[in-house]
Every structure is written in structure tokens, then in C-alpha cells.
């Protein structure tokens, strides 16, 4: 498998009047061709900020970025962090494309669908208007929009939400990018449409041999399409690993908390098991483990480390790594027991 994206020790902070907000704090991850890597976390965990960094879409001046984001652009690796505006613009939409959460507002209301798609092609292939239009119709067809030639001359408001997300996907595919970033692509859609869009993304991934970076807070979506998962909390990855490992033997207390908070039919008449408390302020992060104030397993930690030092991301196997001060064997047993209770 060829590597498409390697993010190393990415830090992103935003200056505000109250101090610097450390939205992303040392994130590293990789994405290979033909796989879907998910970034999971609640609002404000830094998952969207990470993805926008890959696109170089942060507002100039407001975001301070360090680390490296090396991106495979047709065989040569480019570091997005150190590229200038013009070089990033050249990559956007061509080597890496992005689809967004809200398809209702992500398309320009005043331009025809076909023209909006064609523009994505024309930006990188100036002057080739005819080709661009032909490709727009071809892509609309590919994402399952019936009568694409007719629909191409319609405006976004004439499309339903699911159809608009298909249009967004078609737009992202205009230049056959190797990397597709999908930022909560199904959050704004109803459940039946969600399944269709996810199936479509999986199909296209194979067809284009793309790598998909999937940003979501929905574990159901992750289970359905992801190969590997990164769980983020307070700007850091707290657990990463293959999707099965994460779902069947989670090792970070936060991951377990997420799994437990998924509502189940069998748990009727019970309160949802939400993680107590709130995520920490990204302006003053706690000195110790950022999750410690909410963690129910703190007492199992052998040292008083939870409140004083941040745990490192340590591998339990070559692929499965997590952050926690509690000894790994202990976590394994504890969490396995809890999961069993949950499933029974």
C-alpha cells in the first residue's frame, strides 16, 4: 500500500483575546491508498481543525501551525505546512479534495450545478471548458444522479439534501484526487440517505483507489466504513488502531466511554450512559491527563500520574496504541468486563 498522507506532530493553535486555543496538540497519523481512516471525537476535539490543516484552509494569520503534513502529490511528497498560498491552492481540489458536513449550504446558491463542478476542473485545467462540462456530467452520473445532463443545468435548491451531498462528492472527484477528506459527510442527512452516501464513498474509494480521511463523531459510521480509527480528545489522539481492535478491545477510557454512550435498543428505560462532565477548555489544559477530571478509572492508576503528567501514546501492538496511566493489562481486563456487560 502506498502512503498518501503522513501527519507528524501537528500543532495548531488560534490566538484569541483570552489566550491561545490549542486546538490540535501533537497529532500524528497516516493514510494509505485504498483505506479509510477515521478521526473520531466530540465537538471541539480538534478533528475538523486537523482536516482543514491538510487543505491549508485555516485563515491566514489566525492559526499558528507547526509540525509537518506531508502529502503525496503524484509520487512527490509535499509538506503542506511549509507551502505558500499559491502552492497550496494548486494542491487543493486536485491532489486532495474535501466534502463537508452541510450539503445544503456548501453549494453556491446562485450558480448552476454543472458550472460549479466544471469550475473545480477548470481551476486546475484552465481553458478546457468543454472537457470540464463533459467530466461534470460524467461525475454526476458516477455518484448516482439520474439524468445528469439535465440536472447539471439546475440550481442547488432544486436538489434534495442527499442529492446535494452526491453533488459535493462529484465535485470532489472532478480531478480524481488521491485523498478525499470527508468532514462529517452524513451528519446532516437522514439515516437511509446516510447509508447510501457511505456505500457510495466506499464504492468510489475502490474505483479511484483513494484514501479517505473520515471525520465523524458517529461510531456507527466508523464501524461501517473505517479501516483504522483515531480517537481524539482535547486536541490529541488518545487511541489509534484497526477498527476491530477499537470496538472489541478499547484501551483508552475515553474510547470506552464513547462506546458505552451509544444508545442501544436493549437498554430501554435506562438512562443513556453519557460520559460525565465537559471537555476541558483548550485555553487552559489541565497539567495532567486532559481526560482525568472525567475519568471513572482514575483510582486504578498505580501512580498519582493522572493529575500530574500527560500520558504518552504507547503501543500495545504494532498498530494499536493508546494514552493512559493505568497499566495496560489491568485496563484490558477492566474494559473487557465492562464491554461484556454492555453487550449482554
Amino acid at each position, binding site marked *: 500500500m502506498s502512503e498518501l498522507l503522513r501527519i507528524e506532530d501537528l500543532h495548531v493553535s488560534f490566538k484569541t483575546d483570552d489566550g491561545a486555543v490549542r486546538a490540535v496538540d501533537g497529532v500524528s497519523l497516516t493514510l494509505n491508498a485504498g483505506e479509510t481512516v477515521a478521526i473520531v471525537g466530540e465537538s471541539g476535539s480538534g478533528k475538523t481543525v486537523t482536516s482543514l490543516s491538510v*487543505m491549508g*484552509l485555516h485563515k491566514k494569520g489566525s492559526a499558528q501551525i507547526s509540525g509537518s503534513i506531508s502529502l503525496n502529490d503524484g509520487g512527490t511528497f509535499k509538506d503542506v505546512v511549509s507551502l505558500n498560498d499559491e502552492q497550496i491552492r494548486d494542491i487543493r481540489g486536485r491532489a486532495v479534495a474535501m466534502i*463537508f458536513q*452541510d450539503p445544503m449550504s*456548501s453549494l*453556491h*446558491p446562485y450558480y448552476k450545478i454543472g458550472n460549479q463542478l466544471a*469550475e473545480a476542473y477548470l*481551476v486546475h485545467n484552465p481553458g478546457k471548458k468543454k472537457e470540464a462540462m463533459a467530466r461534470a456530467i460524467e461525475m454526476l452520473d458516477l455518484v448516482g444522479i439520474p439524468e445528469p445532463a439535465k440536472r447539471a443545468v439546475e440550481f442547488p*435548491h432544486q436538489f434534495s439534501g442527499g442529492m446535494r451531498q452526491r453533488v459535493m462528492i462529484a465535485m470532489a472527484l472532478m480531478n480524481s484526487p488521491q485523498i478525499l477528506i470527508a468532514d462529517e459527510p452524513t451528519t446532516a442527512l437522514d439515516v437511509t440517505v446516510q447509508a447510501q452516501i457511505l456505500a457510495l464513498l466506499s464504492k468510489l474509494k475502490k474505483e479511484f483507489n483513494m484514501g479517505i480521511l473520515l471525520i465523524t463523531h458517529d461510531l456507527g459510521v466508523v464501524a461501517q466504513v473505517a479501516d483504522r480509527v483515531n480517537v481524539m480528545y482535547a486536541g490529541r489522539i488518545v487511541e489509534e488502531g484497526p477498527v476491530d481492535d477499537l470496538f472489541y478491545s478499547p484501551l483508552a477510557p475515553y474510547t470506552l466511554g464513547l462506546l458505552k454512550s451509544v444508545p442501544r435498543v436493549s437498554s430501554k428505560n435506562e438512562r443513556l450512559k453519557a460520559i460525565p462532565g465537559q471537555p476541558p477548555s483548550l485555553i487552559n489544559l489541565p497539567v495532567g491527563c486532559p481526560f482525568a477530571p472525567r475519568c471513572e478509572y482514575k483510582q486504578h492508576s498505580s501512580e498519582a500520574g493522572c493529575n500530574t503528567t500527560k500520558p504518552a501514546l504507547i503501543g500495545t501492538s504494532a498498530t494499536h496504541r493508546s494514552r493512559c496511566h493505568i497499566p495496560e493489562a489491568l485496563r484490558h481486563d477492566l474494559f473487557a468486563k465492562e464491554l461484556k456487560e454492555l453487550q449482554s
Partner: protein
Amino acid sequence: MLKFIGRRAIFAALTILIVSAVVFGIFSLLPFDPAALTCGQRCTDQIVEANRIRLGFDKPIYEQYWLFLSGIFLGRTYGSGSSAFSCPAPSFGYSFNENACVTNMLVEALPITISLAIGALLLWLTVGIGLGIVAAKFKNRWPDTGSSVFVLLATSLPTFVTGLALLIWVTIKWKLVPLSLSGYVSIFDNPFGFFQYFILPWITLAIAYAAIYTRFTRAALLETLGEDYIRTARAKGVGERVVFFKHTLRAVLAPLITLAGLDFAGLIGGAIITETIFNLPGLGRLTLRSVYEFDLSVVLATTILAATVVIVMNLIVDMLYAVLDPRVRIT
């Protein structure tokens, strides 16, 4: 589209009818004897009574209104025999103060007001939108601050101050624009004279509006720049300049046109202060004079005219909006 225009035209005609009836009704309620106002101080009862009959003020109010309405379409003849005189259709009545048919007075005043309004509109659109773009593009930097200063000054200075200041400095002290003594000349006869005649009134009127348009354009552009579809454009790799001048500006156009249409309609009713300062014999000054002199037929006519322009401009703006914004459907 035709159906829409037809329906709106009927609606517009009805509205104008109601407006004219209301204005007519108000004037009939005023504690003045319209016949007594038709002659000066050395008036005798006989003359007043004769004028009352000549102008139809002796008839009941609904009949007077009917005569007024039919006059618009058929013209109107006042009095009978050798003393009879008539105002051809469309007749909006007769002004005794000026001894003229109201329609003729309107026809004389209208080109001046329209020239004033169009010139000022073009000027304030150029300046307002231009400054708004600059302010948005250089948000929180010196061009933005500069435009804020302009906006603050222009909105807080009343028209009669800017107008008089321009008149005193530009015309009298610096003699940049000659004081126009010859009066209004048509743009077709003497374009240069036309510009000299109107340049200061245009600037006076445009300053106040340009400030509003600068604010509006800046705010609308900045709001649009935060929209999801602008992020989509950037994600496609579209350059910043195209993002700004194509994607963003395009979205701001429709509301701007609406605003401009309605402001323009308001001005046709007469820019009373500006016309008075610069002594322009337009509709605004005509209205003002008629109000002072209780020249009721003229007030009635200008009121109806202003209402008609507003209604018609509304119709035009609605149609333009449908052209500019595909989400708006005309049915």
C-alpha cells in the same frame, strides 16, 4: 412571467386607486375652503363662488373624486362658455396659484428630479459599493478604517450642511463650478452644462446614500465570506481573487439591487432639501411650494405620482430579484 406581471399590474392599479382616494379624502377633510384659496386678498364672494362652480368644488366629494379620476384619462374642461379652459388628458387638475394645468407643471419638474435621482444613484452606487469592497477586502486595516471615518461623517452630516458647504466652497470660494444662472439644460442639448448644473446636487445627495451602501456592502461581503459555499470554492482550489470577486460579490448583488431600487423610488418623490438648497425646480420643490401655498391639486398629484413610482419600482425590483436569485421563482 406575463401572468405575474399582469397580476401585479392589476394589484398596482388598485393600490394607486386606494392611495389617490385616501389622499383626496384627507384634503376634503382639511378645514380650508378650496375655492377661497383660488384668489388672492382682494377677493369677493362672487369670485369665490364662481371659482367654486368652475372647479367643481360645489359638487359632493365622491363626484369630485370621480371627476378627478376621469380627468386623468379624458382630460378636463373647467367652466363654460368664453371663460372655459381645459387641461388635456392626462389631467391631474388645475393650479390656480400658478394658473397652469398640474400635468404641465409635473412634466416640467419631472426631468429635473429624474436627472438628479439617476445621477446621484450612479454616483452613490459607484462610491458606496467601491468603498464597501475596499473595506471588506482590507478588513481592520487602514482602508477599512478610512472608509469607516467617511461613513461616520457622511451619515452624521445632514444634507443641508453638506449641500451648503459644497455650494459655499466649491462654487463661491474656489469657483470650481460656476453658479448656474441659466437654469436647467437637457443632457441632449448641452451635456457639459447639464453636468455643471447637477454635479453638486448629485454629490450632496450621493454622500448620504454612499455611506449607507458602503456599510451595507462591507457587512454583506464579510458575512458571505463566512458562508460554507465560499469554503467550498476555496477547497476546489479557486484563487482568492476569484473567490472574492466572483463567488462573494455575486451573492451580495441581489440584496444591493433591491436596496438601490427602493431608494431610487423614494428619491423620485422629490429630494426636497437638495432641490431647495440648489434651487432646482424639481418635484420636491414643487411639492414643498404647493404645501406652503395650499395648492391642493398639486399636492394631490405629486403624492399620487410618488406612490405610483414606489409601486412600479417594487414590481421592477421583484422581477430583477428573480433574475438575480434563482431560488426566487416568479409565478
